[in-house]
């Protein structure tokens, strides 16, 4: 049995365990043992500002995705089978479009001569085009778009398991619909909220394509710090240290969340 799993395991060991181990080694060893790279990451302005910005953006993206995703999941859960399949298909459809293609689409929509600015000018709402992209706003809009399915699917899966009888019981005991929602439904859907938020937050921490293409060079997220240190400055040690800190943050979040809900629930989707 072990032999059957070994080809796949070998691929994983050689192509992800070894490379990540290499990064970790490189971050502390350069002609001798050194913590210089970590000193830089934690003390130099550009590094910790980028980490702070990344956590802020990830938090904002997670909160927005939850606000947008919860109503959609709730609706999909409360309508007939046919409608719910339609809603979920619309949610999953962008899932299967390349992230790069969607970054392009958002550029086309948001840029100065883009569809939205042209439309607003046509309506005479604005006289000057709005700066919707090449900034943090554009990054957040496109990132939420890409991560929203990761929020809706676990929410929907959790809501599906909440017995409808409970809501009827609440109503029969005289509670208003909003009271039954806040006292019964919402608490029972919290595991889904946690699963969705974890996935969105963690994926956002490592996001690269949208901030690079839509951030206009000002929104320097951690992933871009890693890539610039490698491609532009040849600072392999610093890049490795940043990568290690990012990875540890991700693993720490997964570990913390796994104490409350099963990780299969978080990773189950896609």
């Amino acid at each position: 049995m072990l032999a059957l799993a070994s080809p796949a395991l070998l691929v994983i060991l050689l192509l992800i365990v070894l490379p990540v181990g290499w990064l970790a080694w490189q971050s502390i060893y350069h002609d001798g043992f050194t913590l210089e790279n970590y000193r830089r990451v934690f003390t130099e302005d550009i590094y910790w500002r980028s980490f702070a910005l990344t956590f802020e953006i990830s938090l904002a993206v997670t909160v927005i995705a939850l606000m947008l995703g919860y109503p959609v999941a709730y609706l999909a859960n409360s309508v007939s089978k046919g409608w719910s399949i339609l809603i979920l298909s619309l949610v999953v459809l962008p899932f299967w479009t390349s992230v790069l293609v969607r970054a392009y689409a958002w550029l086309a929509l948001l840029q100065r001569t883009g569809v939205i600015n042209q439309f607003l000018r046509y309506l005479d709402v604005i006289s000057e085009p709005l700066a919707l992209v090449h900034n943090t706003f554009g990054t957040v809009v496109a990132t939420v778009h890409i991560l929203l399915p990761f929020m809706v699917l676990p929410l929907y899966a959790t809501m599906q398991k909440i017995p409808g009888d409970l809501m009827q019981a609440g109503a029969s005991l005289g509670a208003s619909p909003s009271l039954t929602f806040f006292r019964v439904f919402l608490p029972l859907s919290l595991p889904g909220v946690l699963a969705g938020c974890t996935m969105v937050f963690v994926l956002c921490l490592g996001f690269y394509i949208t901030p690079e293409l839509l951030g206009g060079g000002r929104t320097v997220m951690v992933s871009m710090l890693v890539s610039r240190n490698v491609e532009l400055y040849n600072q392999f040690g610093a890049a490795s240290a940043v990568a290690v800190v990012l990875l540890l943050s991700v693993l720490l979040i997964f570990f913390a969340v796994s104490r409350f809900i099963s990780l299969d629930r978080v990773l189950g989707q896609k």
Partner: protein
Amino acid sequence: MMRASPARMILYVISALVLVYLILPVLIIAPISFSSARFLTFPPPSFSLRWYQQYFANPAWMQATRVTLTVALFTVLIATPCGVAAAYAISQSKLRIMRVIHMALLLPLVVPIIITAVGIFFVYAKVGLVATMPGLVLANVMLGLPYVVISVLAGLQSFDPAQEMVARSLGMNRLRSFFAVTLPQIKSSVVAGGIFAFISAMDETIVALFISGGQYQPLTKRMFTALRDEIDPTIAAISTLMTAASFMLVLLASTRGKKGG
């Protein structure tokens, strides 16, 4: 259940707006790709196939397309058997270590892709795999494995292993009983897993940015570089074709999924 209360109406409106937000970018690309305008104007002034012509007539884009298709094909051919064997082992064996192996196979979904990409770049630089075809294929096999494993494990869950025992008690060896009894019943999940691995390889961008180069650059890397410089509607044409390909493959995977286990 109940009449549309004000709260319910708000729910409908918000959900509709969110769905529009989700779908709009996917729908906007096709009209741009069929537009005659050099710069983005909406609605497009007139219908034209010039961006498709420019794509098909450009040797660099064609070479990149060949690289993408070759990589995706080899990824499926390698990742699918490896993933099926691993999923089978995980589901049938009671060894403790299988849980660890299961977790390890999901690592590509857990580690941020930018970290994986840079790590692979460093390793490849040492062994001379940067800007090579085998290097690109291997990285995509690793990234595609979780999709095969997850899909096949789900398929195996509804499969009764007693059937395979029966086949073996009737004298088939383990390998034959797997191909004769088990595989036909989990076929749809194997096909779905393979298709997801193909799409994953076709769309993969970040690892390719670091490790591909020269004549072995996939479409996504060239698109990324082009997008950084200027917005050329040729990208809209390529995007439309890629999206159409993805959707057809997903449709294929989901219709296969409905038949049998």
